[in-house]
Each structure stands twice: as C-alpha cells, then as structure tokens.
C-alpha cells in the first residue's frame, strides 16, 4: 500500500486523476441519488407555468440582482411562517430555472409577495423606495418605467425553459410575443389568448398604469404579483395542518 502510494504521488497526472475519483465519490453517493427521489417534490396538478411576461420579469429580477438581497424561500421556522405565510414547498419552485431561493435577506422574503400589495405600490416603490417606505435602503429602479420590454425573443426564452423541463406547448412558444403584450392590455384582441393558454386565473392588466406599451416595469411587477400564486398548495397544506392540530 505504501509502495503504491509512493508511486502514485510521484506521478502528477495519476495523482490528479486519483483525487478526482475520490472527490466524486461523495457526489455520486450523496447527491446523484437525490435526483431520482420523487417524494421530496409534492405532486400538484394545478401548478401553472410563468407567462412570457412573467418570465421576462423574472429575467429582470435576475439581471438587477434582486436575489442578492431578497430570498424566495420561507423556511420551516415559526417566525417566518408567522410573518410571511405558509412555508415554501419544493413544488413551488419546480419551474424556476435557475431557482431564486437566495441566501441572504437585506430586504424581506418575496416568496408570497404576489397580491400582498397593489401594482401602484410596486411601481412607486421600484421607482423610488423612499417615497413609500421612508426607512428603506433599497436602490431605485426608475429606468424600468422608461425601458421598453423586449418581447420579440420571448419565444426563445420559453423554448430554453422547455429544454430544461418546463411544459410550455408549441402554441405558447409561437404566441409568446403576443401573449406578453396581451397580458398588459386586457381590452386588446391578444388578451383572450393569454387566458386560454395560461388559465383564467392569469392576471391580465396594465401593471404600470401605462397601457400604451409594455415596459420592463410591467414585466417585473407582473412577476412579483404572481410570486406565491402559481399554486395554492402551500395554503391548502397549511390549512389542513392547522385543522389537524385542532
């Protein structure tokens, strides 16, 4: 054994390969088997996918680094459940590629921010947080109001998501650009298609009060307003657990 090791550590390539083999044993034994376990992700048939506009908003959320200060993961701790609502379920980030659970909270958790405040508040707050929350340390994102949201490439974004397992249909991909516009324009001919493809519960309205065009603000607010509402499985489970506790 000692002789073998003596030879191995004198052979640079061989030694590197040996390190790689030993280090990957941990991964194979501890990580790989997790991928095939089904029971860790709840089975929720009504889980819906992000609309093209919400996906665009999600991309802005990533681009602006919101995840650096905001988490999207309510942990199974009493204080978090009491403040933010039912703890996050694995299925709720099933279609998040990449997931945005985050690791740090300079600002509050956003996993259930959807519907908690009005669109007008989100727009005012993103434009200048100090206008509505005097003590806030969040930066301003006023340019989102001015930037027109690029929608012509949203079909490609949907396609990329489908490649990693999100069940977007060909129809959704083909209509992505129109659907992004339709979601912000309830009176337009494109709005009905959004509801058909993504469900009646889809929030269709002008999120930034400027109905004439799709801005990045529209996209980001649409995304924020859907957070925690892709499925109500967490609320159902919490209600059931509450009943059981009584």
């Amino acid at each position: 054994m000692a002789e073998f090791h003596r030879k191995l550590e004198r052979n640079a390539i061989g030694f590197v390969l040996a390190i790689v083999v030993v280090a990957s044993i941990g991964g194979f034994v501890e990580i790989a088997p997790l991928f095939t376990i089904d029971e860790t992700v709840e089975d929720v048939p009504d889980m819906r996918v992000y609309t093209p506009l919400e996906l665009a908003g999600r991309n802005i959320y990533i681009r602006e680094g919101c995840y650096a200060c905001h988490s999207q993961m309510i942990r199974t701790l009493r204080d978090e459940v009491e403040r933010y609502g039912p703890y996050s379920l694995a299925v709720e980030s099933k279609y998040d590629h990449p997931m945005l659970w985050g690791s740090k909270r300079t600002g509050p958790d956003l996993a259930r921010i959807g519907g908690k405040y009005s669109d007008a508040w989100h727009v005012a707050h993103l434009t200048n947080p100090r206008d509505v929350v005097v003590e806030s340390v969040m930066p301003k994102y006023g340019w989102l109001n001015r930037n027109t949201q690029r929608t012509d490439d949203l079909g490609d974004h949907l396609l990329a998501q489908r490649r990693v397992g999100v069940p977007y249909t060909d129809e959704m991909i083909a209509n992505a650009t129109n659907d992004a516009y339709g979601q912000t324009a309830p009176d337009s001919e494109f709005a009905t298609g959004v509801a058909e493809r993504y469900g009646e519960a889809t929030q269709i309205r002008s999120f930034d009060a400027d109905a004439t065009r799709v801005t990045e603000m529209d996209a980001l607010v649409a995304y924020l307003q859907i957070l925690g509402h892709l499925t109500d499985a967490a609320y159902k489970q919490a209600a059931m657990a509450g009943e059981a506790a009584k």
Partner: protein
Amino acid sequence: MDVGDRDPVTGQLTTGHEWNGITELYTPVPRIVFFFLFVTILFSIVYWVLMPAWPLGWTYTKGILGFDQKAVVQSQLAEAGAEQSAWTSRIDGMDYAAIQADPELMKIVHEAGATLFGDNCAVCHGTGGTGGKGFPDLTAGAWLWGGEPEAIAETLRVGINAPHEETRVSQMLSFGRDGILVRDQIDDVVGYVQSLGPSAAAAHDEEALARGAEVFAGNCAACHGEDAKGNRDLGAPNLTDASWIYGGDRQSITSTVYSGHQGLMPSWEQRLTPTQRKILTLYVLGLSGETQ
C-alpha cells in the same frame, strides 16, 4: 534517502522525499487531530441512524427518531396558538366596544397590532399610518367606507378593488380622458371643489364657481353627494375636509378629475386570521385616536 533517514543536523526523521538534494523533516499530524477526526466520524454514524440522512435513489433513510422539521414547525405554531389563546379567545369572543373598554386587552392589541401593522400595512400606509400619495392616511379619521370597527374589519377582509369575490369596488372616473368633461368644465369644477375645503382660498371668480357647482351637480354629486361630503356606501371621499388621498392642490385635483383613480387595497382574508384582522382593526382605530 528514504523514510527513516535522519537529518544529520537535528537528528530528526525525514519524510524521505528529496528535491534536488533538499529533504524535509518528518513532523507528523498531532494525535489529537486524529482523535477528533474519529469522534466526528462516530458522531455522523450515530446521526445517520437517528436522523433523515441518506438518499437511496427512490427514497431516503428517515432515521429512527422520525424527525421532520415540517411537523416541528406545525407543533410550534400550535403551541404558540395555545399560549396566546388566553387572550385571543377573549378577543374573539368580545365585541369591539368591550375590548376597547378593557385596558389590559388593549395593551395586548397595541403590541400585537404594531407587529401586524408593520409586517403588512406599513409599507403602504406608513409606519405611523399616515399614508402617502395614493395611500390613505389612517390617522385622519377620513374613512372612505366608514369608521365603525365593523366597516374597517370588512375592508381588511375583502379589500377594495381587490381580487376577492366580495371586494368593495370604487372608481373615480376619468372625466377628462374619457371625454365626459371638456377642459373648461374641469377647470371650473376643480375650482369649485377647492372652494369646498376648510383651507379654501379667499378670492374666487363667482361666475366660475357657479359654473363649477353646476358641473359638480351634474357629474360628481351622484357619488360624492350634493353636499360633497362623500358617500361611504360607494367609497366616495368627502371633498369638504382637509384630507386628500392624491393631493389637494390644483394640479393634483385636476389630474384626478382628468384621468381618474382606482386605488387598490388588498384583501387580507387569506393572509390574516379573523383574530389578527380584529386586532388590526382596533389598532388602526387607535391610530386615528377614535375610541368609539
């Protein structure tokens, strides 16, 4: 040279390695390090047996203690609920006036209410409840839907223009943008509305005021009332007080009349329990200094 060779100067063993004639003294890892290494290995083996640990491809080892953080948090919540039930049951069972008459309960309401208000309401209405442009001042006593505890509790439950099924609905029409009123009429009616408030400017063009009053009677009185004191059934604000949600200067009122408003108060039925909403109702009433 090889392991076991001694350094001629110090007499200590060397590692046996040699780089261009230079050798290295053999200083082994202290035994205590190995001791703790074995202790940690032993600990992890015990932990694997007791706690959820190993993925097996189709399931995972659950551990003989059956530990599940989801169950832990559920029992913590139930425990906390049981501890609080001493006062939550009293709040649930008493009506608003009785709670307000009980200083001990009101102290609890104030403490619990401050936390609930901070977590849920303060971002729009402000930490002190004083609101801001577009977000009503809760300390002013200028209630849109009524200042009775029941009315406030209902607003908290269903919201205003919210996605709730029974939501309160209210809308200020876009009189200018939708072509209901022309520019001169808007100017006149804004002047008239400004003249109603307590801080009305002294000098007025009487003729314009009369025209404004006419426009008001024809377009605004249906919701805001003949006397402009508002209508709490419709959530139409009183225009004769000093309280303005979207600003009381000429520019703001003009913009309100021109493009309208439809503010949104979220519904809290899903997020907050009836007890929490009751506490918030009392807390909000406390902000406005009203004790009913």
